[in-house]
């Protein structure tokens, strides 16, 4: 039986797909058979972040509608043999996803994989709800910024009421907070919510802290999940996150400010590399 983990956030642009790609890749690199599914029908992007956009032939909707088998639609990752990608459809509308169809696909994948990572679309509509419905665990991606934190709280509300676990009165979905685009220098300046504040407001466990990093854009430019860049702070922070998801106790890194010169402190800035 695979463990199903949804990567969700409510708000768009906070790093769901970046995180889903990094986490799925990290789990695969650690020897787990992993599949990552793009639920963003109509606006697929996971294939770009994973660098397999030119190998997409069939997609999730094709499988659900019986036009292709799972094995035809699954794309094997170039870099890690344990990793497969199931892309979203670019042309169909969101109604093409059905609860029964998603259940069948997840059930079939469950037999072959250890982890199923569901990359949720933004928003709280059908696609987002289907992505989270069957989840055992949820990674709630949050930026240190008011609208992102509020939307994350909305998503937590949905996870506790509109998931299969909630509806069947089983153990609730295990919720994890993943803070991304964190800038310790701005936190020190008092202009960014600190991680304790976010954790206190949302009242869930922190699974990882990803610093604002130039490595993330560099990785997406190249279509290589940032976790492969093991020299970078973001890559290492995602590797730590994966270890924690696998139950290891890893100390938090990248939460305190770098030393900066007087000029830098006066004029702000100081993104990590």
């Amino acid at each position, binding site marked *: 039986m695979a463990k199903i983990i949804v990567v969700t956030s409510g708000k768009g642009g906070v790093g769901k797909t970046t995180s889903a790609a990094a986490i799925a890749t990290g789990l695969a690199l650690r020897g787990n058979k992993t599949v990552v599914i793009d639920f963003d029908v109509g606006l697929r992007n996971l294939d770009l972040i994973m660098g397999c956009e030119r190998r997409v032939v069939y997609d999730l909707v094709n499988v659900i509608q019986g036009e292709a088998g799972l094995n035809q639609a699954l794309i094997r990752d170039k870099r890690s043999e344990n990793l497969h990608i199931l892309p979203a459809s670019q042309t169909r509308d969101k109604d093409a996803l059905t609860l029964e169809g998603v259940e069948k696909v997840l059930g079939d994948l469950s037999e072959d994989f250890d982890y199923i990572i569901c990359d949720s679309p933004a928003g709280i509509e059908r696609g987002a709800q289907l992505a989270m419905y069957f989840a055992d665990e949820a990674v709630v991606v949050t930026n240190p910024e008011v609208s992102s934190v509020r939307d994350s709280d909305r998503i937590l509300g949905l996870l*506790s009421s509109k998931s299969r676990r909630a509806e069947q009165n089983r153990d609730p979905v295990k919720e994890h907070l993943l803070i991304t685009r964190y800038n310790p220098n701005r936190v020190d300046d008092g202009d960014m919510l600190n991680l304790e504040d976010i954790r206190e407001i949302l009242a869930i466990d922190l699974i990882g802290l990803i610093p604002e990093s130039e490595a993330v854009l560099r990785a997406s430019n190249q279509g290589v999940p940032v976790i492969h860049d093991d020299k970078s702070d973001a890559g290492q922070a995602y590797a730590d996150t994966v270890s924690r998801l696998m139950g290891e106790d890893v100390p938090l890194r990248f939460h305190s400010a770098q030393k900066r010169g007087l000029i830098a402190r*006066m004029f*702000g800035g100081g993104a990590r590399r």
Partner: protein
Amino acid sequence: MRLLDFLKGERKKSASVAKERLQIIVAHQRGHRGQPDYMPMLEQELLEVIRRYVQVEQDAINISLDSDNDCSVLELNVTLPNRG
């Protein structure tokens, strides 16, 4: 920024303003968590009925649904304006 703050005199840091605002809005959101979808509509219509008789503010109404094991209680709080 620090130099600028120093020159202007200490002001409240924006992050703590953000935290306070979020605590209020999240507490409000959680109050509505798990409620039936018709609650906002019900609240709005109740307010309209009340306003036919008494002039109350938009936010003078507070409605909540509490469920225990076998019964649910709909609680309605309306703050009426002072007389005279």
